[in-house]
């Protein structure tokens, strides 16, 4: 059965992915961080000691599952294609930029939608920035932006990232080499097997449906096409029902304990960066993992950029803090974006504009 030939079936793929996210939240992932690519890559980078933020260090099996799920399903359905050669270092930079923007907002587009479904109004504010970012990327596309074509390459090149994530899984299960948070978000996680299987299912459905948060908005702006949007809508509806049914739906801005802040301008600008850079890189953080799983070495380089970006965010003090209750005084401590993060976010916007309007399609005429 073809799972992707109608909007209804695509929405169904979104529903399945939503159910996976809901299960992971139920079994222990942090509140409304059920499934966040940026957070989980950041946690995995922390597990390897790439940064020293002790509360966010854990090799998330979801990331491993996503890459392997996309890899296995693409090989099984003959969609695996090893490609490379489309401006890899620019993609590396875009990966870093995406991660910096995501950690200024505190979440990737997937988590933004999950936060929206939990009533977090900050995420709805950030959506404005995300849409504007994607729209700016679309404008660049219309002006002839291109990172050049990718070429078919040795199939082994595409095996590298799936092999690396298998290595991470072995290290996390069989050794005590990797760091693991004892407190904070990194210590909150679903059991390994559930997280891994959840990632595999999510990865497989995301690969078949071509799920992409940036792509969905891009297609709506560019072609009034709602195919990809229907996948996201399916995921949103499931998470909304789950959050309401389990009492996790809290409408408001300064909600403590959900790892979010109410710095509106920087929520908007953080997601503006993510939306803009994601269109330039050809997909949101989730899509980059899926593309890498189905053989794109260019996307794998973007993923590597995201790992380095995540480490930089914590090593240089760029990442925002979430609103929380002071455990002793019970006072609300507002989350905020540090000055370094604001400067980095502005630099990222400038970098996006430079990349967008200097890389042009070459006329072959």
């Amino acid at each position, binding site marked *: 059965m073809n799972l992707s030939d109608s909007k209804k079936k695509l929405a169904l793929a979104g529903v399945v992915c939503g159910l996976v996210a809901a299960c992971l939240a139920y079994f222990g992932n942090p509140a409304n961080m059920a499934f966040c690519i940026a957070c989980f890559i950041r946690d995995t980078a922390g597990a390897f000691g790439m940064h020293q933020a002790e509360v966010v260090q854990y090799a998330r099996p979801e990331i491993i599952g996503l890459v392997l799920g996309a890899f296995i399903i693409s090989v099984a359905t003959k969609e695996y294609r090893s490609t490379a050669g489309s401006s890899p270092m620019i993609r590396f930079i875009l990966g870093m930029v995406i991660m910096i923007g995501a950690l200024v907002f505190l979440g990737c587009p997937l988590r933004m939608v999950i936060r929206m479904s939990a009533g977090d109004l900050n995420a709805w504010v950030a959506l404005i920035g995300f849409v504007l970012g994607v729209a700016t990327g679309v404008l660049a596309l219309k002006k002839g932006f291109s990172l050049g074509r990718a070429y078919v390459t040795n199939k082994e090149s595409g095996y590298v990232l799936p092999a690396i994530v298998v290595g991470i899984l072995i290290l996390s299960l069989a050794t005590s080499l990797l760091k693991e948070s004892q407190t904070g978000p990194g210590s909150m996680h679903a059991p390994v097997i559930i997280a891994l299987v959840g990632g595999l299912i999510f990865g497989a459905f995301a690969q078949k449906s071509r799920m*992409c948060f940036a792509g969905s908005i891009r297609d709506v702006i560019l072609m009034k096409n709602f195919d990809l949007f229907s996948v996201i809508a399916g995921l949103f509806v499931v998470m909304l029902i789950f959050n309401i049914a389990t009492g996790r739906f809290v409408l408001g801005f300064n909600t403590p304990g959900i790892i979010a802040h109410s710095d509106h301008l920087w929520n908007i600008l953080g997601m503006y960066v993510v939306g803009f850079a994601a269109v330039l890189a050809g997909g949101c953080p989730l899509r980059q993992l899926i593309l890498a799983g189905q053989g794109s070495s260019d996307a794998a380089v973007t993923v590597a950029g995201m790992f380095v970006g995540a480490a930089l965010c914590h090593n240089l003090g760029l990442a925002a803090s979430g609103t929380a209750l002071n455990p002793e005084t019970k006072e609300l401590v507002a989350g905020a974006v540090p000055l370094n993060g604001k400067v980095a976010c502005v630099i990222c916007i400038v970098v996006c504009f430079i990349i967008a309007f200097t890389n042009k*399609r070459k006329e072959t005429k």
Partner: protein
Amino acid sequence: MRKKELKLVVTFHTTADAMAMEKACKEQQVPGRIIPVPRMISAGCGLAWCADLEDREQIAAMMKETGIEEEAMHECMV
């Protein structure tokens, strides 16, 4: 829901080529429209040009003239 028909679908190496195609087609009044690449053709998330089968020669000639290179030309239900 709109009934699916057998159409000519031109795919490209880059999104920029697809955008250039749209621009050139509009300027030269060549028929067709831009669509997301149908999922049965490619696992990418790029754009493709969709037109009627009988417009194939006109489209191919225009692409040759303007230097827009296709990745492939498919006939599929869209």
